């Protein structure tokens, strides 16, 4: 399985990848993207099985990336990993077609709760 991790913070991408491994999802290919535009391009080029994306990023936000992907016909499973976990943001995420929203700070248990059933 291939997982695309999109975050404009390199440190946060590392923490997300580390947490994925700690949560037991350690045998998957990881692709990194540094903003929403890069994530959009890499979904087209790399065909990941899942996208884990930050929300607030330069060039293209995570929400704009998800909307652009759906407009282009991509149904790639998509979840947010973001510092903004308010009910309003969760509603926007779900409305755009996101499967889940993991709020930062997170733990490996948070990842397991969100990803069980999504990652084989």
């Amino acid at each position, binding site marked *: 399985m291939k997982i695309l991790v999109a975050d404009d913070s390199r440190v946060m991408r590392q923490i997300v990848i580390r947490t994925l491994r700690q949560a037991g999802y350690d045998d998957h290919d990881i692709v990194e993207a540094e903003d929403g535009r890069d994530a959009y391009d890499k979904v087209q080029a790399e065909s990941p099985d899942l996208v884990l994306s930050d929300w607030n990023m330069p060039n293209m936000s995570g929400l704009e990336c998800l909307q652009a992907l759906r407009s282009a016909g991509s149904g790639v499973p998509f979840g947010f990993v973001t510092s903004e976990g308010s009910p309003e943001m969760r509603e926007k995420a779900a409305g755009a077609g996101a499967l889940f929203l993991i*709020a930062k700070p997170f733990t490996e248990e948070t990842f397991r709760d969100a990803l069980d059933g999504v990652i084989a």
Partner: protein
Amino acid sequence: MTLAPGATERRAGAGPRPLIPALIDAATVEAIAGEAWIALVGEDELLVPVPGELPADTLSAWVDVVGPWTGSVVLTTGRQTAADLTRALLGRTAPELLDHEDVADAYGEIANVVGGNVKAALPGPSQLSLPAVGVAPAVRNPDDVCRVEVLWRGQPLVVSVQGALPPLPHPLSPHENPHPNGASL
């Protein structure tokens, strides 16, 4: 309470524009920061609620919140402590010699997580800016500040949730906004 000129036109509801002490207390800000530290920096990395004197050479990281309450969530600590935080976040992947971009990225991300959670505790809808790192924005109204002083590994760190009157400019759209992490260090 002092309102900035034009505040009446800007406010969304019937009441006066709220000041931060009416919206969030220091215990909540401290709890948010403490959770961020444990999750991002490490399980044993506690913030001790004891004030300390900041050194002369400090570095701040912050995000702006624009909404019914408008202001900044600012972390300030010594420059060396900011570097230590960066190493703690990077863990085994930390380079031998940190560059400014590493510190801006890691320290800014901590501010982003703390700021995002403070925003979630405030009345919305609000928008959150991308993080910036450098010299902290000035306190504009001492009555519109929630300030928490803690120690991390014995070093002082301040979390300041501080209002902006007059309001800060609306965050630029992502298309217009270059990543500000390279701000002056």
